[in-house]
């Protein structure tokens, strides 16, 4: 089976996010005064072939731990959807 995978990676809370801070200021300068706590993370999407959803899920978990996120500074979440579905 094939699953549509979305991985979300963000800096741990408390970690400085210069990019996020810059964007928040820029938005403020644009007149959007109501913005708080803006953070910029990564959104990684791909299709994954595998035998069953359990196998797929554990693979994604492993990819995140080993490569997609750096546990020292980042947290991750992911979502798998049967292809076609969402």
């Amino acid at each position: 089976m094939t699953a549509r995978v979305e991985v979300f990676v963000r800096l741990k809370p408390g970690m400085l996010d210069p990019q996020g801070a810059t964007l928040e200021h820029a938005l403020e300068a644009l007149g959007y005064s109501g913005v708080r706590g803006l953070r910029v993370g990564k959104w990684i999407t791909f299709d994954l072939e595998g035998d069953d959803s359990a196998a797929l899920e554990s693979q994604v978990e492993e990819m995140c731990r080993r490569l997609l996120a750096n546990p020292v500074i980042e947290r991750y979440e992911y979502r798998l959807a049967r292809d076609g579905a969402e």
Partner: protein
Amino acid sequence: MSDRVPVGVVRFPGTNCDQDVWDAVSSVAPARPVWLWHKERDIRHVRAIVLAGGFSYGDYLRAGAIARFSPIMEEVVRFARAGGPVLGVCNGFQILTEAGLLPGALTRNDRTTFVCRPQWLKVEATDPPFTRAYTPGEVVRFPVAHAEGRYVAPPDVLDRLEAEGRVVFRYVDANGERTPESNPNGSLHDIAGIVNEARNVLGLMPHPDRAMDLRLGSEDGRGVFRGLVEAAA
């Protein structure tokens, strides 16, 4: 020639300071640089290893994140664990943290942009072999050139690094003072370089390999390479 100490210079796809490091190693009398290709698995012929600067795998995802899975890195880790001297400069430092040979991580500069400038550093620790050539507290100048050089680590790790005297280089100004302007990237504790517990692995963001020639503004970097080679001899 062949009785000179063989120093491995690792080349990943995207490494671009390899020639600079090669020249730096060659300029240290008893040393002989040797290329190490990222796909190699046999490194028994080298006695020290340098991970040079650059953009391994384009720095895509995170600087050093992909390179650390290269075949050669398994050997580098084994070599380091066995006490062999390993120096990681700039991207090399990033790879060493990703590989877990050094604690913490290197994140985007607080200024968000790449910064290339001459940089004053204070040599905080002279017990690691890499800095024996310097006097404690000596202020030296190596250039920095990076976009992801902001050193971060959890508080307990930082405390431990400080307590164990493992912060080897700190960003300072010409007078050796720590000021906001003297820190080019927002590194915590103004950290520019650290060693592992055993003190045989040094990672630093500034480029000693670019401070080997007065014509280029400084030769303060020679000590680092001399130290590396002496540790291997």
